[in-house]
C-alpha cells in the first residue's frame, strides 16, 4: 500500500504566496515611502513624521474603512453590497434629525446617544431587506442591492427634504471631532469595530461559515449551515457598519447629508479588493481590508499634501486596484492551480 504524504511547497513558492498575501501592506509601505521622498525632496519636510498628517489620514480612512469592514464579510460570502453608501446617508440624516429632536427633551448627551442609536437602528432595515431579497427571493446580490441603493438614496433625500440637516450638539461634535490624547475619537471607535470584526471573521463559527458559503455554498448547506439566515445576517452587518459610518459623519460635519456615503461605495469595494479578497468569494481578511483602506486614504491625502491635482487620486486608486487584481489572478494561476506532487 502506498502512503500519501505531502510536504510543504518549495520555499520560493511559499515566499511568493506570502508576498501576494501581504500585497496591500507592501503597497502601503511603497506609497508612504514615495510621499516621504517627494515631501523631503520638494518641500524639505517629512510626510510620515508629521503627527498632523497621521491624524488626518486616520480620520480620512474611517468612513470608507467602516463601509469596507461590512463589505468584506459580504464579498467573502461571494456577494456584494452596493447600497452601503446610501445606507450611510440614510443613517446620517436620521441620526441628525433624532439628535435634534431629542435634545430639548433629554439633554445633549442623551440626545447624541439617541441619534447614534437611531441612525444605526434604521440601517438595519436596508440590511434585512437586502438579505431577504438575496437569500429567499434569490435575487442576485448585484441587482438586489442596486435596488436598495436607489431606495435608500430616495428615502434619505426625502427625510432630509433634499437638504443637509445641521446639528448643533456638542457631544455629537465631540464624537466626530474630539480627541483623546491626540487620537481622534472616530479613529478609536473605528479601531474598536476593526477588532470586533477581526474576532468575528477569524475566531467564530460565523466567520468560518462565511468563508464556507463563499467557497462552496452547496458544501456549506450539506454541512448543515443555514445559508439563508446567515446571508441575512451578513447584509445586516454590512448595513450596520454603514449606519455607524453615517452617524460618525453627522458628528464630524455637524450635519447629516443623504449623499454622505455616495463617493465611498466604490472606495469600500476597492479597499476590500486591494486587501486581497476575491470578488468570486471565499477569500479576504480584515487586516487586508484595513491595509486597503489605508492605501486609498494615503493616496488621497498624499496627493493633496504634495499639491498634485486631486483628480490624479482617481487614476492612482484605479491603477492600484488593477495591479491588485492582476497579482491575485497570477497568484491563483501559480499557486492555486498548481498542486502538489
Amino acid at each position: 500500500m502506498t502512503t500519501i504524504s505531502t510536504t510543504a511547497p518549495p520555499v520560493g513558492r511559499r515566499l511568493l504566496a506570502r508576498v501576494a498575501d501581504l500585497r496591500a501592506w507592501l503597497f502601503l509601505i511603497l506609497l508612504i515611502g514615495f510621499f516621504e521622498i517627494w515631501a523631503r525632496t520638494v518641500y524639505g519636510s517629512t510626510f510620515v513624521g508629521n503627527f498632523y498628517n497621521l491624524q488626518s489620514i486616520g480620520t480620512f480612512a474611517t468612513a470608507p474603512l467602516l463601509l469596507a469592514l461590512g463589505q468584506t464579510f459580504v464579498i467573502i460570502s461571494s456577494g456584494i453590497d452596493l447600497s452601503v453608501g446610501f445606507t450611510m446617508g440614510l443613517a446620517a440624516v436620521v441620526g441628525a434629525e433624532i439628535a435634534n429632536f431629542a435634545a430639548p427633551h433629554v439633554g445633549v448627551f442623551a440626545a447624541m446617544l439617541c441619534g447614534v442609536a437611531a441612525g444605526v437602528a434604521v440601517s438595519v432595515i436596508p440590511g434585512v431587506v437586502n438579505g431577504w431579497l438575496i437569500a429567499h427571493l434569490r435575487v442576485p446580490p448585484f441587482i438586489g442591492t442596486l435596488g436598495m441603493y436607489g431606495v435608500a438614496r430616495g428615502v434619505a433625500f426625502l427625510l432630509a427634504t433634499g437638504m443637509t440637516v445641521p446639528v448643533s450638539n456638542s457631544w455629537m461634535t465631540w464624537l466626530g471631532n474630539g480627541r483623546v490624547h491626540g487620537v481622534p475619537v472616530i479613529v478609536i471607535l473605528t479601531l474598536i469595530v476593526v477588532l470586533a470584526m477581526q474576532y468575528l471573521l477569524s475566531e467564530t463559527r460565523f466567520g468560518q461559515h462565511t468563508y464556507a458559503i463563499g467557497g462552496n455554498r452547496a458544501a456549506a448547506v450539506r454541512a448543515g449551515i443555514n445559508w439563508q439566515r446567515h446571508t441575512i445576517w451578513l447584509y445586516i452587518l454590512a448595513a450596520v457598519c454603514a449606519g455607524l459610518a453615517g452617524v460618525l459623519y453627522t458628528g464630524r460635519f455637524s450635519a447629516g447629508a443623504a449623499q454622505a456615503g455616495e463617493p465611498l461605495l466604490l472606495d469600500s469595494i476597492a479597499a476590500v479588493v486591494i486587501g486581497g479578497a476575491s470578488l468570486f468569494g471565499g477569500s479576504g481578511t480584515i487586516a487586508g481590508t484595513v491595509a486597503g483602506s489605508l492605501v486609498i486614504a494615503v493616496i488621497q491625502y498624499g496627493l493633496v499634501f504634495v499639491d498634485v491635482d486631486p483628480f490624479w487620486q482617481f487614476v492612482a486608486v484605479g491603477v492600484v486596484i488593477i495591479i491588485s487584481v492582476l497579482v491575485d489572478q497570477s497568484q491563483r494561476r501559480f499557486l492555486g492551480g498548481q498542486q502538489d506532487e
Partner: protein
Amino acid sequence: MSEPGHLLSVQSISKSFGAVQALKDVSFDLDLGEVLALAGDNGAGKSVLIKSIAGVHHPDFGEIIFDGKSVSSASPQEARALGIETIYQDLALADNLSIGANIFLGREPKTKLFGFLPILDRRAMADAAQKTMRLLDFHTERLDAPVAAFSGGQRQAVAIGRAIFWNAKLLIMDEPTAALGVPEQRRVLNLVHSLKEQGKAVIFISHNLQDIFAVADRIVVLRRGIEAGERRPQETTQDEIIRLMVGG
C-alpha cells in the same frame, strides 16, 4: 434472503418515476468490513439505488434496513445521522478552508481565550485532521493549507476522512475514480482498502471494471432497473460482468 444482523439489507425495493421503472425488485445485503461494487450501464438504476439508500429517494415498494432500523423513508439528514455517508463527485468540500475546517464544518469546536472569550479551537481541528487523515495513510504537515492546494485523490481522502471522523458506518462512493489520473485512482482504491480494514462497509460505483475487480468483495450488476446478477470477483470474469450489464 435477508436475515437480520446485516448492516444494510435492501429488500426487494422498486421505484418508478412516472412511467419509467427505475428499480424493480432489487435486493442485496452488506456487512461491515465489506466492499460491494455496483456495476451497470448508464440508466441501469445505480444512482437511484444509492440515492434511495442515502435518503434522497424513497422506494415505492420494499424496505431498506440499516443497522436494524428502516431507512426507507428517512431524509438525507437522518440517513447521515445514522451513519450512511455519500461521497459525492463534487466532494462537497469548501476548497478555501483547511482539512480540519472541512471536517468540522458546521460543528466547529470552541475553546476560550483568556478564560472568557469563545474562539474556534483550531488546534483541536488540526489535531483531529491529522489523526483522521493518518488512518487513511495520508500524512501531511500542511494543516493550515486550504484543500484546494491538494490533489484530487487527496481531496477525496479528506471527504472520506470527514465521513469516518463522524462515525459513518457505510460509505457510498459514486464514481470516485472518474475524474482522476492513474496514480490518483490507485490512491483512491487504497483508500477503499483501508476503509475495509477499519471495518467500514463500502458501496462502490464505477464504470471501470478493473477498479471494481481490484476492490470489491461482491459485485451486484444492474440492468435497466433489475438485478442482473450478483458475483464474487474471484468466481467471475470481466467478460461475464459485461454480459450481465448489457444482457444477452
